[in-house]
């Protein structure tokens, strides 16, 4: 798509290094970790101030130029992909972090601040922003908020939404909104801030945020358990819910996932005997005596076949790598088709029985790599491309699998996207989770804020 000359002329009013048409830049900034889409961006814009963003969005609106907001581009649903000649608006130069407010336990940061940098910044005050996942070294605050990111400690802390007090947002017409400041309580009409959290960049561009912080967790224990079935994982989860501690994370993975991790990085679970399912359990402030009794009970009742407790921080890190390294190893050793589904926790057991039966019956020869958070109802269903199939054939066949899987998800009142969002990848399936009436209201909201439909076009709706 050729950009309108008047739009390009207007860019002359900005610093010379703000736009870039370098081919390598366009390829890099035009795509995210989803990998299945071919990027085709026509221009990269890297503003330094909210005023830059406002003026740029206004220009896009006036000249009807499609614009894709871009953070760390670690998304897995194609939400940050520019494949139709759009302009990419990267927030990476806006990464300033203000000093922490230790009394209010808040920090104001720009949207381009990298998640891990925020963690390090606030840890100096003994504080923690509990939005934490494997891609934290690249993901940015703005993207985390725009996708209402989840991760490994949702069971303890909830989603990103719970940890955002205030937002500065630029609407697609260039209006700058200051929403909620640093207020914990503010019951004054419709909370517009919540509209933008998880909207995947279709309603506005987040430029700054006031983050809510909490104390760093103390005395954390990390366990790895071997379990013999998916139903066994759920039984162990039930036991963990009643354990003498606060559950920080409850993650599981199958032997298929660990085999990929071993192939890629030579890492494997530290047990004598291999097992079909593994669980990483992280707990805070376990009561020592009661913990022993709880662990003995696990073995007496046969809830686990083996287990280990990290003896030091290095072992804790190594146990976590067995789970957190999976996504990267799947991509490094093959082409995974990813699904990220959520079920009400009470329906997980029945759903898993049906899912396993469906996959065994219809796709017996496909390699299924199952892992996930489970403690918050979230399963990552990864299907690996068989060697014999071409990429195109594979993508076509996965569409059939998705339809079958999502029908089961719908029957159990689940979600087709637990934490990755809808983006481009899950668009065909949005109707399995949201009603036509809901979708109608979403479209009306979009039209109010973005009358020309220039912001992140084609995503979600």
């Amino acid at each position, binding site marked *: 798509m050729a950009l309108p000359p008047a739009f390009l002329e207007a860019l002359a009013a900005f610093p010379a290094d703000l736009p870039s048409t370098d081919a390598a830049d366009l390829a890099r900034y035009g795509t995210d970790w989803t990998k299945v889409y071919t990027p085709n961006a026509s221009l990269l814009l890297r503003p330094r101030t909210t005023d830059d963003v406002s003026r740029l969005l206004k220009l896009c609106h006036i000249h009807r130029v499609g614009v894709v907001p871009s953070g760390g581009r670690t998304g897995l649903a194609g939400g940050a992909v520019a494949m139709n000649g759009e302009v990419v608006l990267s927030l990476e130069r806006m990464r300033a972090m203000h000093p922490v407010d230790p009394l209010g336990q808040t920090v104001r940061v720009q949207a381009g601040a990298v998640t891990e940098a925020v963690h390090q910044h606030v840890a100096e005050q003994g504080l923690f922003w509990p939005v934490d996942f494997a891609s934290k070294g690249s993901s940015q605050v703005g993207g985390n908020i725009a996708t209402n990111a989840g991760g490994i400690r949702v069971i303890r802390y909830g989603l990103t939404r719970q940890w955002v007090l205030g937002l500065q947002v630029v609407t697609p017409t260039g209006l700058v909104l200051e929403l909620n400041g640093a207020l914990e309580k503010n019951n004054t009409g419709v909370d517009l801030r919540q509209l933008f959290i998880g909207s995947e960049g279709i309603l506005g561009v987040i430029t700054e945020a006031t983050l809510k912080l909490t104390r760093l967790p103390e005395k954390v224990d990390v*366990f790895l358990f071997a379990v013999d079935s998916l139903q066994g994982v759920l039984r162990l989860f039930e036991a963990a819910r009643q354990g003498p501690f606060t559950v920080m994370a409850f993650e599981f993975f199958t032997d298929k996932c660990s085999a990929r991790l071993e192939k890629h990085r*030579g890492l494997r679970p*530290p*047990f004598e005997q291999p097992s079909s399912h593994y669980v990483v359990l992280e707990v805070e402030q376990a009561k020592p005596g009661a913990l*022993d009794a709880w*662990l*003995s009970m*696990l*073995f007496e009742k046969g809830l*686990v076949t*083996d*287990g*280990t*407790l*990290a*003896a*030091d*921080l*290095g*072992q804790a*890190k190594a146990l976590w790598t067995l789970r957190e390294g999976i996504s990267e190893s799947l991509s490094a050793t093959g082409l995974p088709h990813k699904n990220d589904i959520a079920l009400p926790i009470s329906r997980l057991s029945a759903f898993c029985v049906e899912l396993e039966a469906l996959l065994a019956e219809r796709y017996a020869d496909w390699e299924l790599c199952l892992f996930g958070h489970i403690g918050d109802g979230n399963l990552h269903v990864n299907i690996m491309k068989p060697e014999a199939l071409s990429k195109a054939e594979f993508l076509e066949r996965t569409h059939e699998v998705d339809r079958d899987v999502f029908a089961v998800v719908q029957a159990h009142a689940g979600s087709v996207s637990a934490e990755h969002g809808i983006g481009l990848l899950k668009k065909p399936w949005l109707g399995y989770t949201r009603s036509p009436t809901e979708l109608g209201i979403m479209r009306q909201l979009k039209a109010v804020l973005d009358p020309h439909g220039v912001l992140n076009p084609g995503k979600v709706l």
Partner: protein
Amino acid sequence: MPLKILVTAKRVEDSESKIKVNPAGTGIVLEGLKFKINPFDEIAIEEALRLTAKHGGEVVVVSIGGKEVVEQLRSPALAMGANRAIWVNHVGPMDQLGIAACLQKICEKEKPDLCILGKQAIDDDQGQVGSYLAEALGWSQATFASKEESLESEAEKSKAPAIKLSADGKSVTVVREVDGGLQTIEATLPAVATTELRLNQPRYASLPGIMKAKTKPLEEVTPASLGVDMTPHITVVKMTHPPARKAGIKVADVPALMDKLKNEARAI
């Protein structure tokens, strides 16, 4: 022939913790630090367990310090599989001569065939105790025990001991790391061996092992009951951080980089 092996388990600061020197420059700030077993000692325990798994026998683990060292004796040491523990209860300053003297007295009573110690501890990096102990007992010593196979090899996966017992049970063969290569020595028993990082990959303590460890025998002794005077001969006078690295700079282009490499760094 069953082997009786004595191993050590020093409690050290967890290297993943942030270590800070105290304002007086006399030691490190202990508040908020996490602790673990010295990784070289963990390797010593693993090797002892592999040897007794093959030949039968007993592994006795020793630690010196206040009551907090019992934590490392129970897990990972006993939890990994050591049979029993001896805790030398001592609070206060000590140095390597005092530590070696305690171990000597314990060896004279326990009469192990082999002592395996970490070649050094990761906290003070002194690396003296193994040699003092061998000297005090008049035993042969095999320092820096390593092995020919890599840590990814089948031999490592099968958990075969790298220290090999001779057929008559009177000596051990030890592969040592020397500058640029390996040296194989035979040492007459009783002997003291110290471990390199490449000797083995220690197992994780299993949960059943951790629970069983809570009831394994743990004997408490003191330097006084062993007849050892712990008055140090060495005191730490000063501790400092290494100088902070200067921040990097960005150069404009390749010629500017070449210029800096040539005229400032003199690297080319």
